[in-house]
């Protein structure tokens, strides 16, 4: 994962343009869920529309305005040769580029192809795989161009999205802490599902942002916000095994939305390669 925090944000977008800042929303390989989070902001979107000109947002309007843009929100990962060129264009026409969601930030669920052979998958899925132009790997935006800020989540959290847009407009650092989900879980007053119910939970190695949603409904965290700032998956895995998780289950929990985020990749690979290594650790 590229930049951890919005340290690059130092000046107000508005000051730079002397006018209304222009916002663009771009889509690469993704399910549109993160863009829908923006549309889901309803009331707030009206105020966003008053503060910024939403110049390019195909999900909301069919009449895109031309660049350059002060703030580009980018959804989706890079999976085709055409994406490779288009993301360079997006970077060129954007003063600030913020990735939104697990696909754009970590490669997304489609990065599961990285653990297999994409040509084999294509042969199974498509009648004429020869027409499919696709890359061997699904990469995050930061693997291709410099990124100013990465917003996590599958999908992103509405409150955090508004925070990031507000912060960029005000020229301040967004308040998007990189600590564990457990911090939010305890503040919210949830029962810890690991300790009180014996339910496996990825919260201790996952970045906060969702407000500890799953534990609030007695479910373990699925890790959709990706690895927290200092994940110790090896230690967690030992406990998850003690709670009864098998090696395949352990591999599977890390191989979802953020499978190729480095700490989660290592966690699944170490679980896969050596049961003993975790047990001895």
């Amino acid at each position, binding site marked *: 994962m590229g930049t951890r925090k919005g340290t690059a944000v130092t000046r107000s977008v508005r000051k730079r343009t002397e006018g209304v800042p222009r916002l663009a929303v771009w889509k690469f390989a993704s399910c549109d869920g993160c863009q829908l989070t923006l549309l889901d902001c309803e009331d707030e979107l009206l105020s966003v529309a008053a503060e910024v000109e939403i110049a390019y947002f195909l999900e909301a309007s069919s009449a895109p305005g031309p660049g350059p843009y002060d703030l580009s929100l980018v959804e989706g990962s890079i999976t085709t040769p055409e994406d490779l060129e288009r993301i360079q264009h997006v970077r060129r026409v954007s003063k600030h580029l913020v990735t939104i969601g697990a696909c754009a930030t970590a490669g997304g669920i489609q990065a599961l192809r990285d653990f297999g052979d994409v040509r084999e998958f294509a042969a199974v899925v498509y009648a004429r795989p020869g027409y499919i132009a696709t890359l061997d790997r699904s990469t995050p935006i930061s693997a291709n161009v410099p990124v100013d800020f990465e917003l996590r989540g599958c999908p992103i959290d509405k409150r955090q999205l508004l925070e990031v847009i507000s912060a960029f407009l005000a020229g301040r650092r967004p308040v998007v802490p990189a600590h564990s989900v*457990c911090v939010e879980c305890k503040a919210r007053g949830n029962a*810890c599902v690991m*300790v*009180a*119910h014996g339910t496996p939970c990825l919260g201790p190695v996952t970045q906060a942002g969702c407000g500890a949603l799953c534990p609030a409904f007695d479910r373990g965290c699925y890790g959709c916000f990706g690895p927290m700032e200092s994940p110790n998956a090896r230690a967690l895995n030992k406990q998850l095994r003690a709670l009864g998780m098998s090696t395949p289950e352990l591999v599977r929990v890390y191989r979802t939305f953020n499978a190729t985020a480095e700490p989660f990749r290592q966690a699944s690979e170490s679980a896969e390669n050596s049961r003993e290594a975790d047990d001895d*650790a």
Partner: protein
Amino acid sequence: MAAFVLDSLEPLIAELRSRGFAVVGPVARGGVIRMEEISSAADLPRGARDEQTPGRYRLSTHDGDLMFDYAASPDSAKRFTQPPRQTLIRMRRGDIEEVEDEAPRLALLGIRPCDLAALAVQDRVFLGGRHPDPAYRRRREALFLVTVNCAVPGGTCFCVSMGTGPKATKGFDLALTELADPHRFVVEAGSEKGVDVLGALSQAAACDDDLAAAEEVSRIAAEHMGRQVDTEGIQQWLPQAHDSPRWSDVASRCLSCTNCTMVCPTCFCTTMEDSTSLSDGTAERVERWDSCFTLDFSELNGSPVRGSGEGRYRQWLTHKFATWYDQFGMSGCVGCGRCITWCPVGIDVTEELANLR
């Protein structure tokens, strides 16, 4: 102090409510004892018992009338004296508005002797220095404290080692000891407020048998501590263990998840978050719980001073058991065992201390 006997807590709860207190007491929810507002003694978890070991908590229900047959739960008084999130100031187009938070009148019913000790620690931290915290003072002064002496310490409790329990000696308005056969409570007042509330209830003076039975409950509890810590010289030797190889051993197991500090009734660290609203231009400053296990906590000039897991665990353990004395003249640990039970991987401060020594 004169002791009395109550057959039921219903009149006490009603009296407190009639005096304008919201009564907060233990309820069983989601398989855990939580401290929540109650309206009647029927809300109390009759027959509930807990089982606490490192990284594990289970609640079960049994026959019988006992309502306090378990030990400390994840909620201490901290959730009420120092809420997880509070707005400090709001600013609109240059006008600063201090958010005067109204301190709710709360009667905490069923908090434990170790929790009272933790409140004394919080009082020292928030009120005992050069810059007393007025918001804490308002919330603290609005409390009415009904403690329950522990009958069944949890498997992770070590209040005897820390001199804070299992029987309360000070810091309460009323102290209850729950007795069985017949089900009743021996009650003592510890303050003027307590005497006043007790005076409004119809109660009988405790007889010698009641007093002997109550003494027996506390004596047996003290003999059944789940854990212990040798505190002899700890203020000196623990900081000197700075270079021990044990720190990297515990760091290999620690998740830096912060659960220990979040449930600790005395951990007081917070951070400030400033935010601006898109819709009406309001800016807000919020204080929320933070922990020395996060990287932002020790960030200076863009990188953390305590970047390693060893450094962070050492900070926590050393602060709680040693440097707290230098800072506040007392221990930062009251022996409630919460950090042991609620650590998802069961890291046990008493075991780490024994190994470091």
